[in-house]
């Protein structure tokens, strides 16, 4: 499948044009045909480079600049996406210089960091980009030598012919860019990969370890004002009035004004803005019910008991199956609200003038955010430029761009460059949180076979969508149903790393563990037997591959010594498919002073071709520990619309001494790659909980685990 020929639209070619500063720029755009011109992703007017297209620029000396198209939140795409281009371009990675591209809807497609989709969606276009540029360079060399392009070979950016002549890419770049864009380009066979599959360090590692300014908060502009915003202390409150007399008397304060339901404090430095904000005297009134977590628990449990559900998928006849069952297992699983807590708090730079809108900062959705700002300020989208900084974490919070909108609104009022900076307290209390969700799962067992499976979800503002109902065990149980219902909350909720499944996996994988106990069968074999039933299915809705799931299960069993652990080591198993990747995990727990302690998590992953194993392992280690940490400690409790923890003194994140060793193994195959930012997280919590059950006999059904006094004292 990797050698399939792809067609590049001829019309997307942009002709060469001379630059005032010397040199030539060439661009062509593989993604959006018919565009009259292609704007380079950064200002290249001062550079003497020859642009090959939106992604590649080749200098006379052969140095290749590749623009990383997607936002970098720590998932590694600033390294891995350019690797894919470089592979097909056939250059040495040592000669590649990676630059973050800006928002450019003409050049790039899907500039989003989310859903673990960057690599999956980029795989074909990125390879075609590299391969097409390579073919044009070969064609240029062949023309110069007067031979057929087929007689040329390429290695590390050097084109050779049979006579021993050699030409570097840089030497033919100008000629090549003037040639026709080849319609069909041959892509490499995976066996010929030289860069894909190699351990390539993070392209920003030198800058990170020496403290170079890379992040949104590091973005500075001459004359920029620092803005601290006072927002409603509780969800459901409205600003009535405020007294800023003291705040205005504070050093460094430049301006204070209301915008919408908020108050902006503008100052000459971050500290002065934050300090003055604390002295504002604001009066708020209740605009709607002020919700507490206690209320959420009650509402959601009531909903689970109700008949208000919307059915996402229904196979067979659940009613009949349960009526004929000789055993029924039913469990309810509960999760709290979680904040994202990106270590770099939300922030954004905006400079709004009558002529243009300049934006810069960390956002996972640059295009959507720029569009929202254009709409809000009633401006043309074309007036907006957006520079993407490296992000100090995203985890879904930076999908929303509300912080960028605030910066644009404030700058629009003062007509000065501003940077809105959230304090940690702001960040935690003005969240778009992981919704609190509860599941009730029932299994109908007859003659010790699983004949019915019914999952109900009740979530704040909704959680699962249709795709989740086609995950395991859909297709494996004759009578299957998934129903959802939600409670409309004033508290804003949204995507949180591995949205939809970060808690669903816990519920289901805990349930299967208990189901096996109830049926008296082997926990792993139960899953393998069910997967057998899905093989060869004609149901196109089924999202996972039973064969690939079986592979990761078998691999993790072998690597973790499942069932053969040393005395005193208690193991828990889980296997889950989400974000197009298959993962199985085994957690090893030991008892220390009567408390279960997680020592190791073994992880087997099938994400297809592993583009950058070094980065991939980092994602898996991080995803597993993040999943463990939040299952164990994560809990944002609300009282009267306000979160009760707003900083790390009262909100617990996992730290070094609590972390297990993560051992990861990848299935080797030639299947097109899928994402890794999320899939290792969902199965981690249930693997740990299942190991705790093995160690203590106590089954956890509620997160955070730490609140269970029977287990953790």
């Amino acid at each position, binding site marked *: 499948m990797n050698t399939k020929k792809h067609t590049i639209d001829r019309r997307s070619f942009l002709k060469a044009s001379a630059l005032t500063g010397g040199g030539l720029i060439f661009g062509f755009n593989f993604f959006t045909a018919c565009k009259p011109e292609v704007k380079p992703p950064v200002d290249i007017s001062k550079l003497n480079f020859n642009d090959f297209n939106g992604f590649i620029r080749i200098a006379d000396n052969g140095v290749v600049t590749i623009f990383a198209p997607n936002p*970098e*939140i*720590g*998932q*590694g795409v600033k390294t891995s996406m350019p690797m894919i281009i470089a592979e097909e371009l056939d250059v040495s990675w040592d000669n590649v210089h990676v630059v973050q591209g800006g928002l450019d809807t003409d050049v790039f497609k899907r500039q989003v960091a989310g859903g673990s989709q960057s690599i999956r969606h980029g795989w074909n276009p990125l390879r075609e980009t590299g391969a097409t540029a390579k073919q044009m360079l070969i064609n240029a060399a062949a023309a110069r030598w007067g031979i057929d392009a087929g007689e040329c070979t390429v290695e590390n950016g050097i084109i050779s012919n049979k006579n021993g002549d050699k030409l570097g890419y840089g030497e033919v770049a100008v000629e090549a860019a003037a040639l026709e864009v080849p319609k069909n380009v041959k892509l490499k066979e995976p066996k010929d990969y030289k860069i894909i599959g190699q351990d390539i*360090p*993070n392209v*920003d*590692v*030198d800058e*990170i*370890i*020496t*403290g170079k*300014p*890379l*992040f949104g*908060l590091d973005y*500075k502009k001459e004359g920029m004002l*620092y803005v601290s915003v006072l927002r409603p202390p509780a969800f459901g409150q409205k600003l009535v009035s405020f007294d800023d007399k003291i705040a205005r008397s504070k*050093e*460094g304060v430049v301006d204070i004004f209301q915008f919408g339901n908020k108050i902006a404090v503008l100052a000459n*430095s*971050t*500290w*002065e803005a934050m*300090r003055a904000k604390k002295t504002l005297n604001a009066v708020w009134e209740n605009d709607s019910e002020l919700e507490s977590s206690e209320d959420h628990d009650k509402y959601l449990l009531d909903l689970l008991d109700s008949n208000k559900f919307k059915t996402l998928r229904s196979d067979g006849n659940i009613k009949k199956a349960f009526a004929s069952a000789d055993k029924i297992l039913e469990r309810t699983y509960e999760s709290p609200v979680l904040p994202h*807590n*990106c*270590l*770099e*708090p939300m922030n954004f730079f905006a400079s709004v003038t009558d002529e243009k809108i300049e934006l810069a900062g960390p956002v996972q959705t640059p295009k959507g955010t720029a569009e929202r700002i254009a709409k809000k300020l009633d401006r043309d989208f074309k007036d907006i430029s957006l520079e993407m900084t*490296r*992000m*100090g*974490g*995203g*985890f879904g919070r930076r999908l929303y761009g509300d912080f960028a909108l605030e910066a644009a609104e404030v700058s629009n009022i003062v007509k000065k460059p501003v940077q809105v900076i959230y*304090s*940690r307290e702001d960040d935690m209390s003005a969240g778009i949180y992981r919704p609190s969700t509860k599941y009730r799962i029932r299994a109908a067992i007859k003659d010790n076979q699983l004949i019915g499976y019914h999952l109900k979800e009740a979530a704040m503002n909704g959680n699962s969508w249709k795709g989740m109902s086609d995950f395991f065990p859909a297709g494996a149980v004759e009578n299957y149903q998934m129903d959802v219902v939600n409670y409309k909350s004033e508290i804003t909720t949204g995507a949180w790393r591995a949205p939809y499944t970060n808690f669903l996996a816990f519920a289901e994988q805990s349930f299967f563990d208990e189901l096996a106990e109830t049926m008296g069968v082997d926990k792993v074999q139960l899953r393998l037997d069910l997967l057998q039933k899905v093989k060869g299915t004609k149901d196109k809705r089924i999202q996972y591959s039973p064969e690939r799931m079986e592979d990761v299960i078998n691999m993790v069993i072998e690597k973790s010594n499942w069932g053969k652990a040393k005395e005193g080591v208690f193991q828990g198993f889980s296997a889950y498919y989400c974000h197009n990747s298959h993962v199985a995990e085994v957690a090893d727990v030991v008892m220390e002073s009567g408390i279960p302690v997680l020592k190791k998590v073994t992880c087997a992953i099938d994400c297809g071709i592993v583009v950058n194993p*070094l980065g991939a392992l*980092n*994602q898996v*280690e*991080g*995803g*597993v*520990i*993040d999943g463990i*940490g939040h299952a164990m400690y994560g809990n944002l409790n609300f009282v009267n619309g306000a979160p009760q923890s707003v*900083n*790390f*003194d009262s909100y617990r*994140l*996992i*730290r*070094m*001494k609590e*972390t297990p*060793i993560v051992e990861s193994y990848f299935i080797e195959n030639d299947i097109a790659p899928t994402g890794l930012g999320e899939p290792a997280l969902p199965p981690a919590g249930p693997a740990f909980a299942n190991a705790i059950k093995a160690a203590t006999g106590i089954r956890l059904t509620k997160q955070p685990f730490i609140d269970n006094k029977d287990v953790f004292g």
Partner: protein
Amino acid sequence: MSKFDLKVNDKVYTVNVSDDTPLLWVLRDHLNLLGTKYGCGIGQCGACIVHLDGEPVKSCLLTVSLIGGKSITTIEGLSENGDHPVQKAWKEIDVPQCGYCQPGQIMTAAAFLEKNPNPGKEEIREAMHGNICRCASYNRIEKAVAKAAKN
């Protein structure tokens, strides 16, 4: 506003700021030394750690008026070319994911290894416990500290 002479990375800077300004914001907003990061402002995450006469301190809690003539080292001054053994180990292990917490992690590790050049596994885990890595690159941080000690 008061004037303070601060010795940062072997250079003396004069700043004119309020007495209660935390060193973190003096470094970031006044000296444009942006490697020291803001994470929580209450000394709980370690992203802002710098060395004060070689000791690791949380710069978000250290007000500028309390520094006096003490010598401040930030991530920018840890080594001339990014080649401090801890930085080298961080690069070899390819520790960072988002990278935001890493200057604080590196400064903590460097001060720790200065005092305890041959730490055991548990000592490393104890020493790094105060620094939050939200991406949870903890396995690699642990390995990198051990590697830096070895080198």
